[in-house]
Structure formats: structure tokens, C-alpha cells
């Protein structure tokens, strides 16, 4: 009797001739995600993957739940194709499940057994196998009752090259294997939104490279550490992240000294986009990703987004565009970035935030204002001084 996990993948099925490519990518991502666990192996079978030699470390399942491309998974017991072995495994799992649900011995616990066999040479058919396993469980565990319509627990038996028994089907992260859909540059602040945006894009199979704008001494070393921590959490889903820390103080100071103050934020964002685009070209990425959500703040009105888009020619993905702040926060909690995002490290960039920002900037005026600084030179200098960090979970 061996503890394994049975991983199902979803959308990949849709891909025609590309399918082997997606399957290989997913395989590699699963292997990488499970690297920290010694001895654990991954095996590809028809329509699914098996994670074997799991041992007793439950964190393996947490890691599996974070791999994009897996639609659901089940902790299972792998046994010989033998009725007695299958019956014993079913008993172990059902008892565990009952314990986990704190089902008291006195109350009736309902269940059913569902069997499938892809190995048609197995000497019992599905119905017979279910009956044998069910009967055994009823004899072994008191207060158990069969309910085929609405059971509290379903014991699944699959007879393939081995027999697999499982009770739980846990939802996976969904989406597509990271790396199968190209690469994009994520503009990552220390806030709540941008990590969620990165997560959503990675979920669609995109490899994420991050840029962060650092305005020392207006933002501290600690706020940079916070962004590194956020990357670490994200990398549990998207694999290693290359983080580009861009020195941004000089650009902010120049804008502050030379440009109209009500446009500071929009101008700053244009510079951020441009630098991100330069990084994207270098990294062979094909799009930019931001955490903007329509109307959330002055720089996220339609007019402002137009003015920001105007600075670059690359497509800009804004996966949060239609989400409410509350929804974004909920998702951040689920992903695990929320607690880090809300850490209150000083952000003294507020002096560069206009007291009365324009909410509907006119594109021509923004372009005019921008000419007051030597944009090319500033960007070149910032890019030349980028600090690159490779971050892994």
C-alpha cells in the first residue's frame, strides 16, 4: 500500500497536435514544484499524472495545488490489482475520512463505492468490484450505510496498471501550464493588486518576469524586501521569477521639478511602462501586465489608461480591469499574497503624488508635458542600473 497522488489536467485536452508539448510542459512544472521533496517521483500515464513515493509530508499536496494546468487531484492509495488489497485500502481511507470529518461512532455515516476499470482483463467488472468493496466496508466499520444518491463520502476504485483507491477530489489551480503561452513583464508594486494580476496571467500559461520601481530614499530597503517576498509567494505558482529592480528616484525628481504637478502620476506611469517595455524586449517577452482596475484611482480612469497605453506599443494586459477591490483582496488572500501586501512599510513617494491629480488627462497635453524632461536619457540611465534578482519559492 503506497501513498500517491493522482493528478488530472483539463484544458490541455483541447489542444490538438500541440498536446504532447503541453503535457511535457506540465510534467516539467510538476517535477519542479515537487523538487523540494526528496524521493517524490512523477509519472505520466494516460490522461493523468501520478505523484509517487509521497511519504507522510502533507505539504506535497499544497505544492500540487499550486501548479497551473492541474484541474483536480486526489490523494490515493496504490495497491496490487487484488480484491483483498483494494478492500483494505478502502477501509484505511474511509476511516481517515471519517476521522477528518469528526464523524462520531454513533451517527450513521453514508457512503458509496464507485469503480472503473481500464484494465478490462481484471476478473471482476465494475459493479462486482464495487459490491465486494462496499460489502467489506459495511462488515468492518460500524454505523456505516450505503447511499448511492447522496452519500457523505464516495470511495473511488480505479483499476489500471495498478489499482488506485481514493475518497477526495481536490480542486487544482486550473489554467494552463506556465511557459506554454509565452512570456510577459509584470509591473509589480508592493501593493495588493499587482501580485494578483501576475498570478492571473501566469494561470493562463504565461511565464512572468517582474519589474519593480525603487525610489530610495523615498521608499526603504524594507519595501524592496517586501516585493522580493511577494515574488517568492508568486513563484510557488509560476516557478522562478526574474525580478528587475529599477532605480526610479531620479525620474521622479526630474518630473517633480520640471513638469506640471497635476500630471505627475500619469507621467510617472508612462515612464514605468516604457522601462517595462525595454525590459520586455531584452527578455523576449511579448506583453506587459499591470494590476490596474478601471476607475480604482485617478490614474486608472479610461482617459488615464489611454494616456498610459500611448507610451508603449506592446499589448498591455490588465487582468483585474473589471474586478472590484473586494474581489481582488479575496483573491489575494487565496493566493497568499495579501498578508505581505498589507505590511505597512513606509512609502514616502507620497511627496510625488499630486494633491489634485488630473482624472481625464488630454493626451496631447501629457505628451507636451513629457517633453520637459529628457526622457530617453533618463530611461537609458535607469535601465543601465537595473538590479536583477532570481527568486524562487
Amino acid at each position, binding site marked *: 500500500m503506497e501513498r500517491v497522488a493522482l493528478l488530472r489536467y483539463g484544458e490541455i485536452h483541447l489542444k490538438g497536435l500541440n498536446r504532447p508539448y503541453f503535457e511535457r510542459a506540465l510534467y516539467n512544472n510538476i517535477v519542479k514544484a515537487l523538487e523540494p521533496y526528496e524521493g517524490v517521483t512523477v509519472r505520466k500515464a494516460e490522461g493523468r499524472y501520478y505523484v509517487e513515493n509521497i511519504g507522510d509530508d502533507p505539504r506535497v499536496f499544497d505544492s500540487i495545488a499550486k501548479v497551473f494546468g492541474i484541474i483536480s487531484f486526489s490523494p490515493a492509495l496504490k495497491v496490487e490489482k487484488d480484491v483483498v488489497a483494494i478492500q483494505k485500502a478502502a477501509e484505511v481511507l474511509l476511516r481517515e475520512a471519517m476521522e477528518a470529518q469528526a464523524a462520531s461512532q454513533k451517527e450513521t455515516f453514508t457512503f458509496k463505492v464507485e469503480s472503473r476499470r481500464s484494465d478490462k482483463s481484471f476478473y471482476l467488472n465494475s459493479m462486482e468490484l464495487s459490491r465486494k468493496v462496499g460489502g467489506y466496508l459495511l462488515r468492518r466499520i460500524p454505523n456505516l450505510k450505503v447511499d448511492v444518491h447522496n452519500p457523505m463520502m464516495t470511495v473511488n476504485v480505479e483499476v489500471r496498471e495498478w489499482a488506485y483507491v481514493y475518497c477526495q477530489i481536490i480542486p487544482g489551480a486550473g489554467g494552463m501550464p506556465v511557459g506554454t503561452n509565452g512570456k510577459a513583464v509584470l509591473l509589480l508594486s508592493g501593493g495588493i493588486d499587482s501580485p494578483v494580476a501576475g498570478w492571473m496571467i501566469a494561470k493562463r500559461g504565461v511565464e512572468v518576469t517582474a519589474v519593480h520601481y525603487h525610489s530610495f*530614499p523615498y521608499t*526603504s530597503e524594507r519595501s524592496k524586501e517586501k516585493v522580493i517576498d511577494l515574488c517568492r509567494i508568486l513563484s510557488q505558482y509560476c516557478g522562478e521569477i526574474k525580478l528587475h529592480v529599477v532605480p526610479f528616484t531620479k525620474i521622479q525628481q526630474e518630473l*517633480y521639478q520640471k513638469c506640471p*504637478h497635476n500630471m505627475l502620476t500619469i507621467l510617472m506611469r508612462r515612464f514605468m511602462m516604457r522601462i517595462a517595455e525595454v525590459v520586455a524586449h531584452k527578455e523576449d517577452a511579448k506583453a506587459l501586465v499591470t494590476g490596474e482596475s478601471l476607475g480604482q484611482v485617478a490614474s486608472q480612469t479610461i482617459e488615464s489608461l489611454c494616456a498610459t497605453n500611448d507610451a508603449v506599443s506592446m499589448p498591455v494586459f490588465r487582468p483585474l480591469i473589471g474586478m472590484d477591490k473586494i474581489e481582488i483582496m479575496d483573491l489575494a488572500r487565496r493566493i497568499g499574497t495579501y498578508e505581505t501586501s498589507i505590511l505597512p512599510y*513606509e512609502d*514616502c513617494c507620497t511627496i510625488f503624488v499630486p494633491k489634485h491629480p488630473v482624472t481625464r488627462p488630454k493626451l496631447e497635453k501629457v505628451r507636451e508635458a513629457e517633453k520637459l524632461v529628457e526622457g530617453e536619457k533618463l530611461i537609458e540611465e535607469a535601465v543601465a542600473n537595473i538590479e536583477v534578482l532570481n527568486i524562487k519559492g
Partner: protein
Amino acid sequence: MGHEIYLDNAATTPVHPGVAEAVMECMLHDFGNPSSLHRMGLRADKKLKEARERIALALGVDAEGVFFTSGGTEANNLAIIGTALARKREGRHCITTQIEHPSVLNTFKYLEKEGWEVTYLPVNRDGVVSPDDVRRAIRPDTVLVSIMHVNNEIGSIQPIQEIGRLLKAQGNSPVFHVDAVQSFGKLDIKPVQWGIDLLSISGHKIHAPKGIGALYMRKGVKIHPLQWGGGQERGVRSGTENMPGIVGFGEAVRWLEEVDRDYLYRLKGILVAELTEKVPWAVINGPPPEKGAPHILSVSFPGIRGEVMLHALEEKGVYVGTGSACSSRRGHMSHVLEAIGAKKDVAQGAIRLSLSYLNTEDEMRQAARIIEQCVKELEGFVRR
């Protein structure tokens, strides 16, 4: 970056090399548990006694009155909650000031939730509480008066001696607790002569390691312990003694006996003179420098945020603080600067320079020069 200048000694100090050696020796060789019956235990017990006596000597008190704790915060908690619990039948009113350290203020906040009444006395523009205010606040049910000796953010010195005297003249004689974490080792403290019943001190502010402090208790004062166990520290504070910390504390105090107490005032004098000459518009918060503590100087450059200045200075190798370390991470205004009536831009622009005996005169001049540089770089980016 060349030489680094550490001017955040009110937050914590580097451990003195001699102290580190004593701590190392204690961890590697005299590692016994003072409660053990064998020779190793006895050896540790002797070290414990020695350290206790050292500290008692420095305070001019009996060694039996010194109880080791995990630091200043625990000493303050023990003094305040311990007294409140021990005297709850006599009354439930306490007096403190608006500018205490969070380990005192938040302890009183807790007591308020539990049904005690607390009077928070104001301070004047120099950050000093008036003894008359203390006298007027006393009620028949006042059981505890807790006032810090030196304020950690602006260095103001409270009239402890006077307050102690007037408290002793009271009929019901409330317990007098003094948080001396910032003054111990820098200013004279005479608990016996000044009528202090409880006094908190901490090791890491005077070049001992973190995690060690002490509470002095006058003989006859009763407090209720806050933790129970093997009855160490005569039942006041159970738990195996932090021997490396205690030995380090004792050694630091021994070393302080040799230092020239006026040295810090000389350093501060140089720093103030250089700074006011180079940046004439700098605002000094709290008491005039010569009237404040010798090691703390709070100065503002209105319009330049304290945190920004702090980071700009660290880039050039000068480490300073903004208020207390505990509050510098929160966005809002310091309660101390608010209490002395500082304007918003002054309060937000405050940095704290705090000195130790390990700083040099030359460092003061260099620091002033670097501060001037940073001010020049940043003054163009004041929020308009």
C-alpha cells in the same frame, strides 16, 4: 561608503567587546544553572550574585532589590501590572504622562480595559511634566505613579527627584515607578534618595546584549508576579536566569563605571554646534540641548520627511532613528512630538540622533557634514 557612523544608540547599542567576551565565557564555560546543586550551579550562582551586586552598586541600592527580567518592556509591565494587581483593593487609579514609552502606555491602556482609571499628564513644550500637575492629579485611590526619567524620542529629563519627594509627602503614598531605560548609565539615578519604589532598566541600551533588563524594587514594596514557575528571582520573576545576558549586563555596568560621564555632553555639544551652523533652519525638538539627556537629540528639517532623511543618511553610512524604533514604521505622528505641540511638518520631519560612549568627536563633525549634504539634496523636493 567609507566609515559607518552609528547614531541610533537610543534604539540599541553595539555590545562592548569586553562584554561580548564575558558573555562568550559564560556560554561556553560557566554555563551552569544557578539552581543546580552541583559545583557548576554554584559557579553560575556566584556570577549571578556578582552581576546583581554590580547593578545594585551602580544604583546605590541593596542587591536584594534587583530583579532580572527579559528587558525594559518586561520590567515596565511587571512594575505596572504587578503593582496594580497587588494594590487593587486600595484603589484603582494610576498616573502617568503622555510621553511614556509604548511599553508603559500600552500597559496602562490594558489596565484601563480591565477597569482601572489612568490619568495621562501633559508635558510642556520642552517635553517636561510639571510636579504640580502630578500633585493635583493624586486622588485618595491613586495607587501608582509611573513617570519616565529620560524620554526616548526627544531626551527630555523629568523632575524625578521632586516628584518622588512630593509623593512621599502624600498620606496614601502611591507607589512611584520610574522607567529609567534611557537614563541608566548616562545620568545619575538615586532611587533611595529620590523616593523611587520601582525602577526599570535595560541592558541593550548600555552595550550589553538584547534580552536582559532589571526591575529595582524598594524593600517593602509588594508586586504581584506575572509569571509562575520555579520561583527564581525570589518568586517575582520565575524562569531559569538568562545567565549570558545577566553576566553581560553586569560587565557593561562595570565598564560604565570607568567612562567619563561628561563625554556624551561634549559630543552632543559639538553635534549641535556644527549642525546649527550648517543648517540654520533645522528645528531642535524638545528641551534645549544642554537641558536634555546627553545622548539624545531630536531634530527636524520641516518639509523633508524623517524617513526619507533616514534612508538618505543610511545611503551615506550614517544611521539615525525617527522617534522610537517601535513607532518609526507606522505612518502616523509620534505621540511625543504631538504632546509637545510640534507642528505637523516638524513632527513628520523629525529624526533622532542618539549617541554612545563609543562615538567620537570626529564622527559628530562628519555626521553634521553628511546631514548638511542630504538636506541640500532633498530640500528641492519638499511637497508643495
